[in-house]
């Protein structure tokens, strides 16, 4: 058995979720290869070579991998797929965009967002916003899988895999990237943060969101998150959204401020180690998952909390 992990990276370094995906691969067992497809991506490839458990890094370096389009990456992965029993990628927007395309061309199912490995063909994955966990078995010859990063530890460095250049596939020219606006932030990435301060509609406006939650996040060295309602209302950009259809997080500490705790929001954060909820409604469902609930007005409470830290 040889497993191919498709690295998510920005050409310079690996995205954190790639490290968790390598750990999921090691639970399946067998050799682990990592594919780094990028443009001037040798730094990312070197980092992959240092991950424990990885025996080989395949690098496809070409200008048409700069934008990481699903169409071009699929052509490359398909050309390699015959050598592998499993193909894994993180269940991020990158992996979710790419792997179903790969699976369809291989005529196999994709197993989405696994949280557990039972054996080489049997996996656990959440369904219905994480309100049920399905154990599924695949009969396909190649298992194509996306991995929920919060369910697996990050692979450690300390390895020294061989790095091998492979041929790029042709440029499909099917899509052109015309613009990319990445949210700039000095704060930790949501997916990798130890502490997350998350705000909901209760904050009332984007101005309040920033005025109240940024000092709190600064004090705690936390990442900032949000409910869908806060994103829809334009308080913060889309990439702040935590939930079933946003980001899945599991920090040491999650502080929910003015968030009611809808099923779809809980799906994204209920595996956090410690949950704090600040909400003025004592019946808000968020209190059912909170370790520490404070029924209070957030406009008074949050500044007091910042002062007390």
């Amino acid at each position: 058995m040889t497993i191919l992990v498709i690295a998510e990276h920005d050409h310079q370094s690996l995205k954190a979720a790639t490290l968790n995906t390598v750990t999921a691969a090691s639970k399946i067992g067998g050799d682990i290869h990592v594919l780094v497809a990028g443009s001037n991506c040798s730094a990312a490839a070197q980092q992959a070579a240092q991950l424990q458990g990885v025996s080989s890094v395949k690098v496809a370096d070409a200008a048409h991998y700069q934008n990481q389009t699903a169409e071009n990456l699929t052509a490359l992965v398909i050309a390699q797929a015959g050598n592998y029993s499993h193909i894994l990628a993180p269940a991020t927007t990158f992996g979710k965009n790419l792997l179903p395309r790969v699976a369809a061309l291989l005529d196999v199912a994709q197993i989405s967002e696994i949280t557990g490995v039972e054996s080489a063909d049997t996996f656990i994955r959440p369904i219905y916003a994480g309100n049920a966990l399905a154990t599924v078995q695949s009969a396909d010859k190649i298992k194509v899988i996306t991995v929920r990063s919060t369910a697996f530890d990050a692979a450690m460095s300390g390895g020294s895999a061989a790095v091998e250049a492979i041929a790029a596939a042709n440029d499909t020219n099917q899509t052109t990237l015309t613009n990319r606006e990445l949210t700039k932030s000095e704060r930790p990435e949501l997916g990798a943060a130890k502490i997350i301060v998350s705000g909901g509609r209760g904050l009332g406006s984007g101005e309040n969101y920033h005025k109240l939650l940024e000092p709190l996040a600064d004090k705690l060295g936390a990442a900032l998150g949000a409910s869908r309602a806060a994103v829809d209302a334009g308080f913060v950009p889309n990439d702040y959204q935590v939930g079933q259809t946003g980001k899945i997080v599991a920090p040491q500490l999650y502080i929910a401020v003015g968030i009611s705790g809808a099923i779809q929001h809980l799906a994204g954060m209920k595996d956090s180690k410690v949950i704090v909820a600040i909400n003025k409604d004592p019946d808000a469902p968020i209190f059912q998952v909170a370790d520490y609930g404070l029924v209070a007005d957030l406009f008074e409470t949050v500044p007091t909390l910042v002062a007390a830290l």
Partner: protein
Amino acid sequence: MKILVPVKRVVDYNVKIRVKADGTGVDLANVKMSMNPFDEIAVEEAVRLKEAGIATEVIAVSCGVAACQETLRTAMAIGADRGILVETDVELQPLAVAKLLKALCDKEAPQIVICGKQAIDDDANQTGQMLAALQNWPQATFASKVVIANGKAAVTREIDGGLETLEMSLPAVVSTDLRLNEPRYATLPNIMKAKKKPLETLKPADLGVDVTPRLTTLKVAEPAKRSAGIRVADVAELVNKLKNEAKVI
């Protein structure tokens, strides 16, 4: 230009589902079913493209049990022109749905397929990408803005780090994210009108598609419950607990 919109019948998003005691699945008896919310957004987007004079016809497609007719009627009440039901009692997985949709694309020749990014029951997030692969069409997943002009689509996508815009020629597959639009409510006159719109029923065999599931569900279990927490009286107690009990700050 035709637009094809796949719509899935799922448990309503407000329902808190229950896992069956014998671990064979989720209890769907007497549970409210609705159109997958992302598919409502897809229908709305297609209907707006028609209203803008860009599309000429919006075809809604649902694959599954006979009751999916209701989902198709809902799509037609929002403004889809007709519906196609691919009827089967077999459990459909995304690859099978993608193959059924491919067969329908070959038949109907739409220029755009707009589907939801994710069905909120299986949380798979696969079908649109699979269809695009089978057709060798470009794809734009997680769309928050779609502009169609000169035979091309410019689609803004919600990605983990922010937003990006892709341009592609048609035909293409687009999958919707939450911010693409706010679907309208179907009005009573439109619900009445929808009842008279054409609804065709086919079987997977009519389309020559084998829908046998590839994954076998061995067990469905409830996730571990969080143990009940406590209410703290004030900020001082909260800080004290976080420092000395939970030790997370």
